[in-house]
């Protein structure tokens, strides 16, 4: 646990991508969850990242590795569920898929504004840890 406190200081001068800060927050959340349910070594964490969350999964994994290296939870896996946004055109009454690389919220068929649900997830879903306790 001595590993936790200096994290902010450790990365203070190297956080030049926001994925690094997010990786730190995910680690904090994991540690909090382990503490709430006993104690032990973190084995894996599963998170949801939405396609509109403006978070790059590979950079997030890179940040995660940097956060856990040389600490008590070194080697813990970060598993990412990438979530698509659900887009619907109220005028056509149909689901409309987002074309690759475009964030437009206008129906490609009729031009009406799309209703967008989800896709902005940045959630911790599951934390797995090893413990001596029953």
């Amino acid at each position, binding site marked *: 646990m001595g590993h936790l406190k200096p994290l902010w200081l450790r990365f203070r001068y190297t956080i030049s991508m926001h994925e690094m*800060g997010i990786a730190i927050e995910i680690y904090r959340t994991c540690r909090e969850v382990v503490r709430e349910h006993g104690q032990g070594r973190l084995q894996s964490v599963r998170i949801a990242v939405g396609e509109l969350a403006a978070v790059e999964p590979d950079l997030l994994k890179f940040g995660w590795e940097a956060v856990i290296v040389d600490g008590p939870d070194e080697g813990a896996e970060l598993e990412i569920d990438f979530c698509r946004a659900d887009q619907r055109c109220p005028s056509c009454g149909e689901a409309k898929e987002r074309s690759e690389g475009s*964030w437009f919220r206008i129906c490609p068929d009729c031009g009406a504004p799309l209703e967008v649900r989800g896709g902005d997830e940045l*959630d911790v879903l*599951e934390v797995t840890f090893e413990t001596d306790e029953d």
Partner: protein
Amino acid sequence: MTKKLVTIRRKALAASEERADKLRGRFADSGTLVFNLISSPGSGKTTLLETTIGRMAEVCKMAVIEGDVATERDADRIRAMGVPAHQVLTSGACHLDARQIETALETTDLLPADVLFIENVGNLICPTTYDLGEDFKIALLSVTEGDDKPIKYPAIFSRADITVITKSDLLPYVPFDLDTVTGHISSLNPSGVILVVSSTTGEGIDLWCDLIASRLEAKRRS
């Protein structure tokens, strides 16, 4: 050694969002309307603030938090106009977070104020993710940056409540198709407001100041 699996659904940025909510409460108590200004470096955020202060200093009390990697230059420019300003120096970090806003409020007498402008670190990507307790996110795009920026960096333009296109006096000199850009921004964000301004000629500044005044009025009524 046993293995435990805990299923939760907790926002990864919960701690940061909690801080932002506390800030929002504080701003509600002081009746302060808060704007979070996000754009590339050099798009004219500080200049727009100077122009705004020049126009609105007599009708409302303003305060500014400046975020930059280095130097007090921006805060100095604001202070020179008689408005309290706090400079956050991020030493390389690419965005402001709620913790830095808390510190700014503790160290500098910024509140009470009618309007607080938070000028984020110049960056179209990272500041988008962080809630600073603001009422509205404002994106700025200068015409010299090129008209493809909203579709290349869509996150901020889809989330900003207001997009301000700046340096409109330079339109005759640069290949920037205003209709295409406003079309792109409306497609990214059908409910967003778009303004076209020039701090040099004053174009659109009345509309911008009216917008601030009406949002302030709406906040006071709520």
